[in-house]
């Protein structure tokens, strides 16, 4: 009897092999990044960056001459069928289950075909909704091929770290497929996607660290990748871009953000030509009130911000003087309010879309979905009366109490 039971258990293990869908790790080719470009006719140029798991592991010695990844581009009707087509040169089975990054060229994002791309994405079980979307200024193929991170050999780690870093710095928005589909399905607001480019286009030295779009940062050395600012997508098409500073402001004004803290510079209120550098910490959620009782919505935003002043180029002693601190707080609040109002006006008049996700707060004002849909937020937003009010709190001045007495040194 015991023998019978044991053999039954052993037979059971036969069922654990995965049956017809058994996959050997050795036979898989893991796609790390997928790129999509417009192709001829109904086709797309689809680029796969396939990671080489041997590189960067203890098994490196056996594969010394192998590159860290293989990049192939095929012309195919969609992402799924391209997977098979890729096998003309890749001997392993191409798998999407570890793909983290989805790169779409600006050209494709601006075309009518943009939404079609996502049909395949939602239907295929291998593709995760947490994949990041990056809109590249040039062709996605060129973007992937020319992206050569110096410090990271393994491509997946590069994308992984990149994602975390940029998310925290607030220079680019957190844009996943899941969030994209939500914004498009809700059909009330716009979506911000990461905007990036390889190589400089025309650099604009403007003395501020975040008033750049991708490609405008004056930088030499290292990888030529530049990822700053966001592409604005409205009703399934890319309609424009915003720069890094505008993106940070959007993040501060949105009801939800993943960005945590970043450095930013502001003009010194006593010496306009000098700058202050501060670490911005978002403090809780902004209070967003939407009044929909009138024909024009009235939006009041109160955004709390914590600030650590880290550098004062003007050498003015703010630490000792309470009056000066108050003045500084007011000045920064004024600066932030003004900059946000410029951005709001840009969103209302130029982009004509709600990039601040205020539609989410507006939803609270309605009892039923049909009422909300009738209100037609996407058309009402450009007429909205927006009031932004930042509440800045300076929490510390770094590890130094007083500035260096510059006059004394110079004497």
């Amino acid at each position, binding site marked *: 009897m015991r023998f019978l039971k044991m053999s039954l258990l052993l037979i059971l293990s036969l069922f654990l092999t995965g049956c*017809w*869908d058994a996959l050997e790790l050795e036979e898989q080719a893991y796609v790390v990044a997928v790129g999509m470009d417009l192709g001829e006719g109904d086709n797309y140029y689809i680029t796969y960056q396939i990671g080489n798991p041997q590189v960067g592991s203890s098994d490196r010695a056996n594969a010394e001459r192998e590159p860290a990844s293989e990049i192939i581009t095929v012309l195919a009707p969609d992402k799924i069928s391209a997977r098979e087509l890729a096998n003309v040169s890749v001997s392993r089975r191409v798998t999407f289950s570890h793909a983290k990054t989805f790169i779409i060229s600006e050209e494709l994002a601006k075309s009518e075909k943009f939404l079609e791309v996502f049909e395949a994405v939602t239907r295929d079980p291998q593709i995760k909704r947490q994949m990041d979307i990056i809109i590249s200024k040039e062709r996605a193929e060129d973007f992937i091929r020319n992206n050569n991170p110096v410090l990271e050999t393994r491509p997946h780690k590069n994308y992984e770290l990149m994602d975390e870093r940029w998310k925290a710095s607030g220079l680019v928005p957190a844009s996943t497929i899941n969030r994209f589909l939500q914004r498009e*399905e809700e059909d009330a607001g716009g979506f911000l996607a990461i905007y990036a480019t390889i190589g400089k286009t025309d650099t604009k030295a403007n003395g501020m660290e975040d008033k750049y779009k991708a490609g405008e940062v004056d930088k030499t050395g290292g990888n030529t990748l530049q990822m700053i600012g966001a592409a604005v997508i409205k009703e399934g098409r890319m309609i424009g871009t915003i720069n890094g500073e505008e993106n940070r402001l959007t993040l501060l004004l949105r009801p939800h953000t993943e960005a945590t803290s970043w450095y930013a510079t502001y003009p010194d209120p006593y010496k306009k030509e000098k700058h202050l550098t501060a670490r911005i910490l978002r403090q809780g959620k902004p209070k967003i009130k939407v009044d929909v009782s009138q024909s024009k919505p009235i939006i009041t935003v109160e955004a709390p911000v914590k600030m650590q002043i880290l550098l004062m180029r003007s050498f003015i002693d703010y630490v000792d003087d309470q009056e000066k601190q108050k003045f500084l707080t007011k000045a920064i609040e004024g600066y932030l309010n003004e900059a946000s109002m410029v951005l709001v006006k840009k969103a209302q008049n130029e982009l004509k879309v709600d990039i601040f996700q205020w539609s989410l707060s507006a939803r609270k004002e309605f009892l039923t979905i049909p009422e909300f849909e009738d209100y037609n937020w996407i058309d009402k937003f450009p007429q909205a009366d927006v009031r932004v009010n930042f509440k800045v709190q300076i929490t510390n001045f770094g590890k130094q109490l007083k500035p260096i007495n510059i006059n004394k040194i110079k004497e």
Partner: protein
Amino acid sequence: MDKLDGKIGARELFSIVIIIIGIKGADMTPANLFPSGQSATWMFPIVWLVIMTIPIWATLSLLKKYKEKNIVEIIYLLTGKYIGFIICLSLLALLFTATVLNSRSYVDIMNVMIFPTTPIIVLYAVLIGSSYFIANRGLETIGRTSWLLLPYLVGGIVLLFIILGDNIIIEYLYPITGPGITKVIKSGITHSSLIGEFLLLAIFFPNVRDYKSYKKGTLWGLLLSCLIISLLFIEYILIFDYVAPQMMMHPYSQLTRVTEIGMFITSLDAFFFGLWILTGIIRFSFYLYGGGAILGYTLKIKEYEPLILPITVLTIIVGLIPSNPSQTILILRDNFLIKKTWIYFFALPLVLWIISKIRGEVKK
């Protein structure tokens, strides 16, 4: 092994109820509910509980009155040989259809999400075969396995909530009443048969230690099941907003694919899938055992356990008939099994209760 008297207690019953009803939040049921519930879909389980209070109470009072008798025997006693036979047969047909459609939807989900090239018949045979293995050991085994699994199930759901805590957006729950409160209540009522299992549980009343533990087990079980379903629905909305779940075949597996712990541990879906499949196996083992029991009592066969095997085989054979998987299951299950039967589960206990009252009066 000292308490093996073939009877189950309140806690076993309680965990059975959770596994057969609570898990409906994680199968294809959301696909049936979200189109009509939208951002208020999570209110449905509350509507079901409210609507079904009266029939649940009627069933309980019948069981209390006719001690030691199960629902099939009570039906025979109250409605006579012929009508009773028809009612019991309809009960059996309902249970059988539910078993077939639900197990097929499980197989479809597995096929689409994890095993795209494995033949459906193999998946079916493994799933239902494992269920048969448990069902064959009797109600006590089902109850004890459920009780064993319950902490992991609840722990898994809690873990899911903790992991996804960062990704939720509370505003997605608004507009709070979704399509409007009247529509929610109406649609909730037509879907209330989703907790109709309380009637099927009454077959096993004699197998439960006493009336008190039966009452405790079912009522708490129903309450917690509805809570679990509601919470899962809320989680779907908080992660995906209300539009996406309307189009998803199986939001649970999509939800578990979103899970991440830190930077490098991504997609814990395999863990949650394992939990889900274990729950499914126990759920179908109960259905199979229940089918055998109803058939046995209806035909007045004392030893009904040998009937489980033919029911198992029949489930697989009938389950393989629909060729176009999800659509057929969605349409069949929603239009026939769920929407048309709520009145049955609502009215039958009441009618039985009224007959029993009248008879009692006449006897006096």
